[in-house]
């Protein structure tokens, strides 16, 4: 078998969905820190988003499964915590997709810049935490819809 290039592997990984927010890929999320051939073994380095995020183990499994589906059996998934994950690593494509999906993308100012549904800037924070460790709950005072905000981290 011809060893696929690492660019090819990155492209495949860009089709592995995040288990909690399946509209974006693990590459969009910025948690794939490296892809490297070591002899005949493909080493993929992953970093967790939050220390206790239960999705981390699922992601490691789906990455290995996806590579196997493309014919790569010898994989090693390495977990690396330094430097710590930051939402700065979210891809532009990922940020745009999040907003279309109804999740306001992270914003350095500390809160969403606008409502992902009606673009209003008239917003209220409901809760500092949300349905997953990476999100908070906000509400739009114009369209009155609550929405998830991907916390800046």
């Amino acid at each position, binding site marked *: 078998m011809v060893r696929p290039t690492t660019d090819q592997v990155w492209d495949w990984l860009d089709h592995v969905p995040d288990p909690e927010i399946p509209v974006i890929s693990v590459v969009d999320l910025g948690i794939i820190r490296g892809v490297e051939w070591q002899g005949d073994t493909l080493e993929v380095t992953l970093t967790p988003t*939050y*220390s206790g995020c239960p999705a981390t183990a699922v992601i490691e499994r789906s990455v290995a499964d996806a590579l196997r589906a493309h014919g790569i059996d010898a994989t090693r998934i390495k977990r690396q*915590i*330094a*430097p710590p994950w930051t939402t700065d690593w979210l891809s532009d494509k990922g940020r745009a997709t999040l907003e279309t999906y109804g999740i306001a993308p992270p914003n350095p100012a500390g809160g969403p810049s606008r409502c992902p549904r009606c673009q209003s800037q008239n917003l209220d924070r409901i809760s*500092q*935490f949300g349905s997953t460790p990476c999100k908070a709950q906000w509400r739009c005072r114009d369209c009155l819809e609550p929405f998830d905000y991907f916390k800046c981290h």
Partner: protein
Amino acid sequence: MTQPHDPKHLFEFLLRMGDTTLILGHRISEWCGKAPILEEDIALANTALDLIGQTQMWLGLAAEVEGKGRSADDLAMLRDAWDFRCALLVEQPNGDFGQTMMRQFLFDHWHLVQLTALQSSTDDRIAAIAAKAAKEATYHAERSADLVIRLGDGTEESHARMQAALDLLYPYIGELFTPDAIDNTLAEHGIAPDPASLRPAYDATVNAILAEATLTRPDSTFAHKGGRTGARHSEHLGHILTQMQWLQRAYPGATW
């Protein structure tokens, strides 16, 4: 030239970090499903999750340093109370929601100064865990300070409860800043800060927030000690462990 430190000291230090986050994580998970409102329920469960995630890193490194083939799970689930090294503060019962948030506030601000200092540890593994955990602790500290202010400077009832919680929990703070021989050795090697050196920064932040919350800080310096050394845990720890460890005790080696 300083002497090389005993690896046992490093192991003890890592247990102090990991056991403290483990027991507090377990304590606040006790609120899951019954917090006063849904948002607080979610916030407490998420904070617990962060703390348990940090525990996996601290106890994982402790197990590695110990080198006896034990895992983070073994350390968490198969030790008895006298082998735990958590601070007494985190063993204290939840009480009402205000008491839980006061305990969290007093802990979070210690946690944050401790993790900030640990990011410059001469041990890269410790610095990496601290950098990861500090981002989460910053968020926790912001939230608990906000709630202490809102409840302290709230109604007569909420103010009275927050003052009672502060009076009850304050004597557990001193332990966090009291060094022993292990702390001194690690500080000498630049692995961890001297706990006493963190006190001025802690006091400055905590005093300012308590003042804004219209709460009166007790002036006694009396401190309960014995959790971090394992010499004298409070009676509550054993009760927590019976809950937390029962599955592994009843069905040894059970996995998902």
